[in-house]
């Protein structure tokens, strides 16, 4: 959207409403306390705080926030209901478009999606949309009874959803509501995908993930864990018993820097580090039987949300010094602002403009030092960000007993590797002929989320799931469901 148009929309504000520019803070655990526990950092709004925050909404005639939402939540709609104290109405509104509001409210990058578009953003006080979304979802859970949505009569069609992360859960939920029989397959022993193995307890309590999966089950979705599609059954075999398949298999193998020493003991990929802690509950060792190391000096390489999660996990495991090593400057840090701030409050030290060049081990193969080089910013590169350039002769070493490499990952390789007829791109993502449908090169097979786009966010995966669900429904029944505004705008 052009800046001019945004300004024009800004003019649609009701003139009489007195602007309340005090964005309500969400109560959270103090840093010196939360450093020592894995409980959720933020406590969430109270009903009073939520209503006060919601009442700040300008109820724009053409709400720009909705345009920023990948799943097209009716933001002013649910916010208004909270403002009026109609919390049940608010959650009902949210669930029309988002089957995982408690999760999206916690992990969505609102500051680059809905909140950045808010007309109050211009006054430096955008609506706290994520916090309100989370409030509505938590309020419903606290009532002990989750309202069931309207369900269409059974169509007799069967769909297999492979992977139970944000994309898979969205597809499964949407299709179940439309009357299709859905079986969701998960390779790990617990459903939830990245929500379960990746995002730490202190940012997204697993109880919430289980609650959302239970909701999907109540919609009639059958969840089968310990099932490795591609291996336990081939795609061809699965196609013979289902009318359609959605592949949402998510992340694959981690990327490394390709510097010497990356296979030393004490060097982890973020995927391993976080999976060991979250899915396997290693943080409870020795009460849990998952062995972990409690390192004293930990360096996390990378500047995204996964890097923040790893660093903050290391802090909670009792590390004395935890560093984030990032080759660009603070301006370019890709992590959510809130998460970087949380990390800093918890004592994580940010080493900007620094690039590791070598990991040095002892005679037993254990990491003991990291060698880095300083960087400076040059001309903008292809991504539009200023390119970091090495400063010659600026190498330095730091003693380190653990390094977590959080540079991202390739898409999951398993299904493509055992399904030659499934086309993949050069990047290893499953080829999707049209992102407006999610269709792959294989007949009756759709894909979405990280495995189709490369690493992105939870909400982008949910958005892709929504698109695929609509396309699958159209294929199964011939009925065309209306596309949502944000998809139209973004395409």
């Amino acid at each position, binding site marked *: 959207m052009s800046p001019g148009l945004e300004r024009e929309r800004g003019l649609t504000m009701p003139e009489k409403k007195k602007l309340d520019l005090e964005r309500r803070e969400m109560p959270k655990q103090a840093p010196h306390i939360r450093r020592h526990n894995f409980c959720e950092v933020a406590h969430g709004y109270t009903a009073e705080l939520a209503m006060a925050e919601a009442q700040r909404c300008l109820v724009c005639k053409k709400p720009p926030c909705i345009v920023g939402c990948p799943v097209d939540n009716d933001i002013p709609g649910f916010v208004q209901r909270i403002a009026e104290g109609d919390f049940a109405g608010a959650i009902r509104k949210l669930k029309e478009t988002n089957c995982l509001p408690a999760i999206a409210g916690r992990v969505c990058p609102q500051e680059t999606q809905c909140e950045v578009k808010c007309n109050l953003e211009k006054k430096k006080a955008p609506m706290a949309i994520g916090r309100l979304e989370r409030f509505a979802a938590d309020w419903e859970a606290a009532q002990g009874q989750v309202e069931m949505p309207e369900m269409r009569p059974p169509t007799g069609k069967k769909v297999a959803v492979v992977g139970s992360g944000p994309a898979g859960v969205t597809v499964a939920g949407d299709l179940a509501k439309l009357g299709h029989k859905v079986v969701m397959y998960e*390779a*790990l*022993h617990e459903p939830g995908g990245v929500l379960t*193995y990746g995002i730490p307890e202190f940012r997204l309590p697993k109880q919430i993930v289980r609650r959302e999966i239970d909701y999907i089950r109540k919609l009639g979705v059958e969840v089968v*864990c*310990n*099932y*490795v599609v591609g*291996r*336990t*059954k*081939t795609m061809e075999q699965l196609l013979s018993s289902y009318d359609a398949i959605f592949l949402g298999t*998510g*992340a*694959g*193998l*981690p990327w*490394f820097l390709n510097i010497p020493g*990356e*296979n030393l*003991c*004490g060097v*982890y*990929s973020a*995927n*391993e580090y976080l*999976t*060991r802690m979250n*899915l*396997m*509950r290693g943080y409870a*060792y*020795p009460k*849990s*039987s*998952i*062995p*972990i*190391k409690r390192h004293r000096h930990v360096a996390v390489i990378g500047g995204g949300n996964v890097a923040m999660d790893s660093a903050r996990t290391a802090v909670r495991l009792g590390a004395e010094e935890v560093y984030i090593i990032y080759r660009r400057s603070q301006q370019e840090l890709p992590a959510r602002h809130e998460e970087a701030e949380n990390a800093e409050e918890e004592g994580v030290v940010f080493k900007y403009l620094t690039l590791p060049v070598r990991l040095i081990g002892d005679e*037993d*193969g*254990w990491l003991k030092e990291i060698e880095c080089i300083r960087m400076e910013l040059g001309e903008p590169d292809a991504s539009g960000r200023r390119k970091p350039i090495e400063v010659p002769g600026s190498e330095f070493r730091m003693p380190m007993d653990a390094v977590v490499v959080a540079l991202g*990952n390739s898409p*999951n*390789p*398993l299904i493509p*590797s055992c399904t030659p007829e499934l086309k993949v791109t050069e990047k290893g993502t499953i080829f999707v002929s049209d992102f407006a449908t999610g269709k792959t090169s294989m007949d009756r097979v759709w894909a979405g989320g990280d495995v189709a786009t490369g690493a992105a966010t939870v909400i982008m995966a949910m958005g892709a799931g929504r698109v695929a669900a609509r396309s699958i429904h159209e294929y199964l029944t011939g009925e065309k469901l209306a596309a949502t505004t944000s998809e139209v705008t973004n395409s």
Partner: protein
Amino acid sequence: MFKVVKMERVVPNIHLMEVEAPEVAEQMQPGQFVIVRCAEGGERIPLSVADWDRKAGTVSIVFLEVGVSTGKLARLKAGDSIPTLAGPLGNPTAIASEGQVLCVAGCYGIGSMFPIVRALHEAGAEVTVVLEARAGFLLYWEDRMSALAKRVFTITRDGSSGQRGHVTSLPEMLRQTGIAPRQVIVNGCTFLMSQTSKTLGGLGVPVTVSLNPIMIDGTGMCGVCRVSVGGKMKFACVDGPDFDGREVDWTELLARRKQYMDEEAYLCHRASSARGV
């Protein structure tokens, strides 16, 4: 849940577990493995598969009791259940259909070698099996191997069965018997595989080893099973588990496998104190 239909102590510390998993049995190929959890809250451990029965819908695993998880597995009884048995994972072992193949196995690797020997035999290869152990009472399945292989030799450290010594005596054995394998396959502990690779590397034929690094998901996500093969980073769960042992960085693999030994020892101690042992 996956029902355990049979538990058997094969030799001291080595157990056979037969589990009901019809879909896994249906797809299983020689050289593949499964991820098992012994109980809720337990580790995910990769275990090679020793046999399967598609009609009965079961998978048999031969494993060494070495830590807390395998200890819990070893104490299961027929009729108990385990929460996870996922697979089959990894690429099957490439099976030659002609020529001589030398299969060297030790410890739990004797179990996983059995279906490889069977497949080689059925495909038409001439198989020589060498079983290695500390002592004769630790050897098993000689009879099953003999039924399929052209020859079965045993090597023990104390000489209580077959040749006395270690796999270092293999080149001499090959010379004496005139066996000239086109491929060597080794299954067993990392030490056995590394020693065999070094000893037989000079033959100039592939030494196929089935690597057993630490794994978590086992499906190409976590990256903990990375190994250096021919100077490149490979992931045993999806690129392997079979690699050419002549190209594997064994020092690195041996170190990486030992990473959690202290923590595991503490867990074992804790578990045995809890049992009042």
